[in-house]
């Protein structure tokens, strides 16, 4: 499948001088299946915002030292949360910027996938470490 897509993409690039950028963009999206609606992105962005808030609460707990009880922020968990939130934020911001610049178009699925991956990681951590209780 990747080979077919790569060949199709190469063909599109070769055809680029014959059409406009918008046509190329649409063709690229058709080949890669890279299309998400603003509604889909809004749901993921809302989930991300809620999870970022939960993660913030967790990180405000005292760092676990081995002797300060169960209600603390485990450095191993923090090490997973921080990059997931940062990656998700970049994807969310880029998607929002895309839809502001292209209000009537479908968004790039690569960014959406990055945001969805961040949300999945954070949801998993929230469930595994009961982060919702951190307030």
């Amino acid at each position, binding site marked *: 499948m990747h080979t077919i897509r790569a060949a199709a993409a190469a063909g599109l690039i070769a055809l680029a001088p014959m059409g406009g950028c918008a046509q190329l963009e649409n063709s690229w999206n058709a080949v890669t299946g890279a299309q998400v609606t603003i509604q889909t992105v*809004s749901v993921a962005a*809302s989930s991300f*915002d*809620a999870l*970022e*808030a*939960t*993660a*913030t*609460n967790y*990180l*405000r707990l005292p*760092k676990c030292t081995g002797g300060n009880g169960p209600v603390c*922020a485990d*450095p191993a968990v*923090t*090490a997973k949360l*921080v990059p997931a*939130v*940062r990656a998700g*934020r970049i994807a969310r911001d880029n998607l929002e910027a895309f839809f502001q610049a292209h209000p009537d178009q479908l968004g790039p699925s690569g960014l959406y996938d990055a945001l969805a991956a961040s949300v999945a990681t954070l949801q998993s951590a929230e469930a595994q470490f009961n982060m919702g209780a951190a*307030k």
Partner: protein
Amino acid sequence: MSAAIQALLALIEALLPKLLSGADSALIQTILNALVQVVPVIIQEATDLIPYIKNIIASLSANSATTTEQLATLQALDKQADDAFEAAAAAQGFPAPSGSAA
């Protein structure tokens, strides 16, 4: 206090479609002034209410009566949740990478 603020935010959120259907920038400014007051409290003490604030900010941002200046204020409010996370991450020994915009 969190429950009281949540009730207030839910009320604003529910009323927004009606409020903004014939909105002028003065009404938006009134809502914005309330947000400016309440967001720092929420960021510090009730981060689980941030999604309510985000929804209100998104609705106001999408309204055509919102002025450029008001939009800038909304974006600054929106960024506070990201800043709060970065402050908490830095306190845990994970400072934001240099050059990060958050």
